[in-house]
Every structure is written in C-alpha cells, then in structure tokens.
C-alpha cells in the first residue's frame, strides 16, 4: 500500500485497499471508481480514484464516507509465451536491459505502466524485430541510470561477454540515457569485442506512442548485425524519426536534457549514419575494428572506483581537493576552465596530491577542443605540479579511463602514459574544423 499517514489509517479502518471499487460519499457529491496508488511525495489527505470515465481525481478524506463495492483483484499482466522459432538464416542478437526500458505495457484499467524486460515482451512490443534477427533478451539490472556505478559496469561487461561467448553475433544494451556515455566509455575500456556492442535508450519513455525507443532499437539491431566490432552508442541523429548516428563509445556525450538527438559526438565525427536498415560510414579517415569470426573476446575489468570528477569554478577552495585526498581518493579528474586551468591557489593542494602519488588529470569544461597547459603561466605551473593533460578527452571519459587505468597499475608514470595514449578512440591527435557543435 502506497498510502501513508491519515489516508493509510482511514483506508485500513474502511477495509479498502488498492484496486478495490468504491463509492465515495461527500457532503454534496458521490464518486464511484477504483482506488489507485498515490504517488510518493504527495500529501496524505487525498485518495486517488479512477472514475468509470477513465479520469483520475484526488478526493479529500475529510468528512468522507467510503464504501467498498467490490474487492479488486491485484492487476497482473499475463501474456501467453511467444513461440518464435529460431531462423538459422538470421543472425543472433542479444538485448541486455539495465533498467532503461525499451518497451512498456500499459494497463489502461489501472493506468499502470509495466516495463517490458524479457525477449518476449520486447517482441510483443516490437514485432518487426522478428524479421531482422533471432532476438535473445535478458534483464540484468533494474535501475535508473543515475544510479549506475563502476561495479555495475563490471556486471554489465561480464553479461555482454557471456552473450558473445555463447555465440551472439551482436549485443544491444538498453540503458537509461543520463549516464549512457559513462557506461559506453567503461565498456570500451573493459572489453575488446569481436562483434558490435551497441548501447541505446530512449529520451521519450516507451509507454508513449511517440517514443524514440522503437526506432533506436531497430537501428541498434542494424548496427549489431554490422561488421563494426566496436562499443557504440546508437541514438536519433535529429528531431525526426528518420535516421540515427552511431557514436564512438568514448567520444559521445548527452548534450540536451530532453531532445531525442541529445547524444553528440564531441571532438570527432559520428562513426556512421543509420537509415532504413543501412549503415553509412561517416568518418572514413578513422579506422574501426572489423567483426572477427574467431571469437577473440578479451575482458579486463580491474577497476579502482575511488576516483572523483571535480569541476573548477571561480572561488573554488583548495579544501575540496584536500577533502578528497584526506578521504583516500586514488585519483582526481579536474574539469578545468578553458585550456585546462584552475585558480592558482589550488595548486599547492595539487602538489600535495602529486607528493602522495594521487594522479590528477586535467580536462576542460569547454568540452570542445583540447587541453593545453603550456599557453598560460597557470597552466605551466600545473604541469610542473604533475597534472596530467587529458588532451581532447571528454571529462566523463577521462574519469572512467582513470578508474580503469588505476585498476591496471599503481605506477604513476605508467598511469600518465596510459592516460595519454589512445586506446579506444578516446584521444584524437588532430582537431578538425568540423568537430565543433555538430
């Protein structure tokens, strides 16, 4: 029962629970309807009723007479299992869900939205998938993407690896969009994959007819069947339901709170464009790994999660750096201003980090462009304090990479070398004129 306080007491005294059909009598009005759940965070003096005409209303329990008309059954959605035969001609594609729901079922009787996790659910909601591939589905997590954390990256990476080892020709990861680009970076560093690993999600929830989930999923299947053996993000390219982009997992970022085309390649071009089941490679200069028939999956999931991502701002206090050092953080990624700067009075704290062998990596809050600490005196002082330039890496990618790197070695020189070496497309040597605001 989601009611609390006064409502809860009242309902208990009337012997009424959620799903029951009731008659509500007030001084000058009566309502007949079904008692529904009440959202958390609302007051405890209103009951929510779904009237026979489908509308929900809230009714104040003050001076209310509540009469139970009919006990409700706990609504449950039971759909018969699907019998989809495996087609040997088609590729086997796995869809792993972490809680970003790519499909939903609405129970219009109660108005409840049930996320769809299983392969059957997915196929029911998107029967077109059957035409494209043999679809396997699994839900490994059920979390909101803001609750993602490094240990879940490991779990996810292992699940992806399992699917590939069991013969999957391509893996799709359904993920909430908020932290999708952290996970895509993490999987990029953890996995060396012989087949496509495609991460997708939805900016409009899948319970609405206008959801972008369907097109994103269809495009992802196309990507998962392709010969791009990379970790990629696949989402809408524009506001239209027409085509999508495949972004490198390490060079993509959520850039808009709500638009469908929120994901943008930064300091690079999208890898490919997907339209009507066809893939067109956009960045011809940049190579990509091709699908390898012989399974040579490698997984390296040693991580050191005790890393912080700190944004510099005018007036930032050195205390913030000291706090993290005191708390035993093993690495810091700074999101500096401009070319990669922090206020000068922070520098002694950074020197302390250097002395106790806590690597400090500098990125830029400009996002676009590369870090260069040689241009201004503060930058030069930072270099002298041992701060490592992340070059043109995104702050989030640098954060994930430092977590991974610290899992590989404790040697500060080696850490610096790894951080500044392009492993998975996260660093580009050249900054093209085309790379800004696309």
């Amino acid at each position, binding site marked *: 029962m989601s009611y609390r306080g006064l409502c809860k007491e009242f309902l208990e005294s009337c012997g009424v629970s959620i799903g029951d059909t009731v008659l509500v009598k007030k001084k000058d009005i009566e309502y007949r309807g079904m008692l529904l759940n009440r959202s958390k965070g609302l007051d405890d003096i209103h009951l929510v009723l779904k009237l026979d005409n489908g509308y929900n209303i809230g009714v104040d329990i003050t001076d209310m007479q509540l009469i139970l008309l009919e006990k409700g059954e706990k609504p449950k959605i039971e759909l018969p299992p699907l019998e989809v035969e495996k087609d040997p001609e088609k590729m086997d594609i796995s869809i792993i869900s972490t809680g970003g729901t790519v499909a939903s079922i609405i129970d219009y009787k109660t108005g409840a939205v049930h996320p769809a996790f299983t392969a059957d659910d997915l196929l029911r909601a998107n029967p077109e998938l059957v035409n494209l591939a043999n679809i396997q589905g699994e839900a490994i997590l059920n979390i909101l993407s803001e609750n993602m954390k490094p240990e879940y990256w490991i779990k996810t990476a292992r699940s992806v690896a399992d699917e590939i080892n069991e013969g999957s020709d391509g893996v799709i990861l359904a993920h909430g969009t908020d932290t999708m680009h952290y996970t895509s970076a993490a999987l990029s560093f953890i996995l060396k994959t012989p087949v496509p690993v495609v991460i997708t999600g939805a900016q409009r929830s899948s319970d*609405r007819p*206008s959801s972008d989930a369907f*097109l994103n999923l269809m495009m992802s299947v196309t990507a998962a069947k392709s010969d791009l053996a990379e970790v990629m993000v696949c989402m809408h390219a524009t506001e239209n339901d027409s085509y999508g982009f495949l972004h490198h997992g390490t060079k993509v970022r959520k850039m808009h709170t709500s638009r469908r085309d929120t994901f943008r390649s930064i300091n690079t071009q999208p890898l490919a464009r997907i339209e009507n089941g066809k893939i067109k490679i956009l960045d011809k200069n940049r190579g990509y790994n091709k699908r390898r028939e012989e399974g040579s999956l490698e997984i390296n999931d040693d991580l050191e999660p005790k890393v912080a991502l700190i944004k510099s701002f005018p007036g930032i206090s050195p205390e913030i750096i000291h706090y993290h050092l005191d708390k035993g953080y093993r690495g810091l990624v700074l999101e500096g201003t401009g070319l990669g700067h922090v206020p000068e009075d922070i520098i002694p704290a950074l020197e302390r980090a250097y002395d106790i062998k806590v690597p400090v990596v500098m990125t830029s809050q400009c996002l676009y462009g590369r870090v260069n600490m040689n241009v201004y005196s503060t930058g030069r002082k930072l270099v002298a304090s041992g701060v490592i330039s992340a070059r043109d890496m995104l702050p989030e990618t640098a954060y994930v990479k430092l977590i991974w790197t610290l899992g590989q070695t404790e040697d500060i020189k080696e850490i610096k070398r790894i951080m500044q070496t392009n492993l998975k497309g996260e660093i580009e040597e050249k900054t093209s004129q085309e790379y800004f605001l696309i």
Partner: protein
Amino acid sequence: MDYGKLGLKMGLEIHQQLNTEHKLFCPCECNLTDKKPDKMILRNLRPTQSELGKIDRAAFEESRRKLQFLYDSYDQHTCLVETDEEPPHPLNPEALEVSLILASLMNMKVVDEFHTMRKQVIDGSNTGGFQRTGLVATDGFLETAEGKVTIENLCLEEDAARRIGQKKNQTVFRLDRLGIPLVEITTDPSIKHPEQVRDVAYQIGQVLRSTKVKRGLGTIRQDLNISIKEGARVEIKGVQDLDLMPKMVENEVKRQINLLKIKDDLKEKEAEVEDEILDVGELFKETESKIISNALKKGKKILVIKLKGFSGILGREIQPGRRFGTELAGYAKKMGVGGIFHTDELPAYGITSDEVENLLNYIKASENDLFVLVADEEEKARNALMEVERRARMALRGVPEETRKALEDGNSEYLRPLPTASRMYVETDIPAIGISAVYLNDIQSNLPELPQEKKQRIMKKYGLSEDLATQLVRNDKVDIFEKLKSEYKVDPTVIASTLAYTIIELRREGLNINLLSLEVLGDTFSLIENDTIPTAAVSDILRSVAQHGCTPREAAEKEGLKKLKESEIQAIIDELVQENQELIKERGRGAMGPLMGKAMGKFQGKADGKLVNKLLREKIDN
C-alpha cells in the same frame, strides 16, 4: 414528430478554446499563424502494446505505414513542448482558474485534486500520441424553459495540432494550435426536445462568453449526441449554427426512422450481402460513359458487387435530399474513391440501360437485387466495395453507431465509427494540483456576471436602451463603458453609442481604430464634459484622430468642431436678425421658429440650442 414516443435522447459536448496568455503546458502564445514554418519535423506514432494484444505483424506494418506525420514548427511561435522534445511545463494556473469559474457558473462540483491524464490519440494530431486532459468538475446543472439539464463533466485539456494537408503518405500538421487550453463541457444525454438542445447550447455559450474564452471561427466546437429507441447513438460533429440544431436533430431522427424501416424491408426481401467482388471491365469495353472509359484507359478497374434484395433501397430518401445510396458512398469515399454507381440511379452518367441489363444478367441478379460499381485503381476500388458491403450488412441490423459530420443544410455525413472507450493513463510529468476550499471560495465569490444579467443591470442602472445594452455586452464593451461613465459626466447613451456604434462605423470606413485608445475616448468625453465640443461632434473628432493620429483637442481645433463663445454666438445672431428684419416685423415672436432653424443651420452644432434660443429671443424682443 412525437419525440417522447420515439424515445429521443440528446447530449451536447462543447469544446471551447480559452483566451489565456499562454498555452496549457508551455509559455507559447495561444495564437495561430500563417507564416511559413521554420522547420518540419517527421515523426511516427505507434500504438502502445496493450492496444494490440498479440503479434499481428501485417496489421502493425500497416499501422506504421499510415502513421507518418510532418509537423510545421517555429523557432519562436512554438517550442520543444509542442514538438514533444521537452516534458510539459507545470499546468497554466490561469487556464485552471478560468475552468473553475466556468464550473462554478454551471453549479458544478469541483474535484479536490486535479490530475492530468494522457488520452491516447494516434492520428497524429498530438505529437506525443496522446492528448493531455483532466477532470475539473462534475454534476452541475443549467435551467432551461423545459427543465433542468445536467452538466455532467467539465474537463480542461490541450487543443490538438491543426491538420494542414497531405504529402503522399504523410499528414501535415501545424503545431500552433497544439496546447491551447480548451474546456470540454458535456451534458448528460437526457435532453429530450430539439428546442431544448438549442437552449442549452445557447446558455452554455453565454456562460463561456462571460469568461476569458476565444471568439471567432474555430474557437468553439459543438457536437451533438442523438439516439432514439431502437436506433443507435450517433455523434454529430461540428454543428456551427445554434439555430440549425433543431433541424439537425429532426433530420437525424428521420434518418434513424428511415434506416429502421429499411431494416424491416430488407428482412422482408430476405436481403443478403455477399463477399464476392467481380471485375467487369470486359462488359464496358465499348461503353459511351466517359467516366468508365476514361478509367479503363488509365488502367483502372471496374469492380462490382451484388446486394441481394437491395433493389430500390439505395434510392430511398433517408434525410431531405439524401438517399441511402449516399450513406454507402460515404463509406466508400473514406477509401479514397470518388463515389459509387448503383442500379437505383442508373441509367445515367452515360451508362446505358442495355449496359445495366447486361451487368445484372452477368452477375445473375434477380428482380430484387442490385449492383454497386466502382471504377478506380484496383486496391482502392476493392477496399471501397468492401466498405460498401460492411455498411450494407449494418443496414440489415438497423442503425450503426457513427460519428458524423454536420452539413450546412442540417443533414450529416459519415465521418468514422464511434470512438471506443478512451485509453487513459496518468500524465506522470505533471504533479497533481490540489484545489483548496479557500481558493475555490475566492473564485466563487468573485464570479463574473452572466451576459444576460449584465445587460439587465446596465439597462436599469444607466437607462440604456435594450439595443445599446445588447451591443455593449456582445462586444465586450461593458467594462470600458462603466469606466468612462464613472470618470466623465456625460450622457451614458452618448458613451454607449460611441462604443457600440461609432467606433465600429469608423472601422468599417477602413480607419485605424487602434488609435482610439481608452485615453483618446476619455479626452473626447472630457471635451464634452467641459462644454468645449458639442455632443454631436464625437464621431468627427474620433474620425480625425483615427486619420491623423492627433489628440482629440487638436482634432476639435483642426476640424473646427469647437463650440462657439457666447460673444461669437451673439454676433452671428445679431447678423441673422439684421438680415431678417422683414420677417420679424411681420410675425414678431412668430419668427422665432424659422429663425431658430436658420441659426442652428449656421452653428452646425457648435452652439448650445438653449443658449441660441435665449439670445435670439432677447434680440427679437428688443
């Protein structure tokens, strides 16, 4: 007709746009635009899963093919909320307030807490695939001459996008209208007389007009629900003219009665509808009918079905000037064909009686049978005939439930089947809004006057004629009138007729009446109050202001409309008396009449009649 005996029941559903500053869920303005869109956005809508139940790939593909939409959007006029790229902003409190005022004016019970719902609509008119709507109040009433009518529900909802056109498989909508606040008012289906339905619609209209609602074409939509015993519920959409309502009802009742008769007759004739659709192009190779031969030349098909026992039925009139055949044609046309041909109207259109005979023989029709023919591309023609069969089968059962479109002659035509129960679930992006007793009390103790009350009050208080009062109320000028009246000591009739007539006449002359601000009107009346200009000069002053953008005082100067000083009047009278010595000698005081006339002619309103009279009399007496 004895409506009581027929079991006539009617309900009204009225949709009215509100005239709020912003849309219901975003800060965009509530106006339509004819500008070229800055962007066109392509979207698909998919029915959500529970709508389908099981996998039906073909149906899904089909629905997908149809559900492609293009949306006209604007950089400034619309925003990301309309394009479904941003969650809705909190509900516009102004719109909620207007709907609470309306609910209170109709004696309704307001809900304690307002919940915004999503009503699934996948015809593209809402970018999200649902319309946002919420129940504000229930169970009110209005008094009519024929008794109380229950106002069942009042909902506050967002208006849909405007359908602009069709580009191949894509329907084009414009986002300007999407999100304009709308109230939906429904009566219960207990209205029993056609006159009463008009009365209820009129009264609801009056209530609406007392609050902030939009005026003009397309801002109000009135739908009528009608049924009779043995008949079926039919919804007639878009009844524009209230005075047409009784006729509309009468014609619909006639239609249902006639359809019931047709049902009985068909039963007697043992009528039957078969599935078979035949290609009869061969029979028309030599035809002289232009329509048919042109169709054949273009590679179209001539398809035909047989309706057993339907002979004579299609030609039967079911509404004044509308035959049953037209009902079948209405269904066929929804599949994109131009129309149908049937035996009851042939020979005609160049199709000869020989050809008709031939065709009847070919399909082995007996005396009571009839054929329906369509000439079009094969798929279209086939779909059209399948729809005709479907409608013909319904005729065997009586009156189908339908949504129909009101026609200007009081008839109606088929639009679509009645919608099934709405699929609704809660809009999770909008928190529930409590409507406190204090807030509601505040609204209810400041309710606006209904137009009728307002009219009576100003007639009584200011001694205005009914005509003037009606004009002020109808044109929303009562507030301005009362403001001006309270500030200037001027005859209320003068102020009222200026607002009700003069300004409108000036607009008809093509003048820029926007220049006639409240301030300009005030200055003009103050000139009257100070006796600077005569009352009769108002219209000329305002015309001059509208033409030249000057102040009323400048206008009075420029147009020579200022009243004359007493000395100037005296001088003119002296002159006049001088010129008419003969007349005065002859008639003495009796010359007053004619001289007064001449004097007023000379002054042209620039002198006060009483003063002229006094001065003239003194002069003559001397």
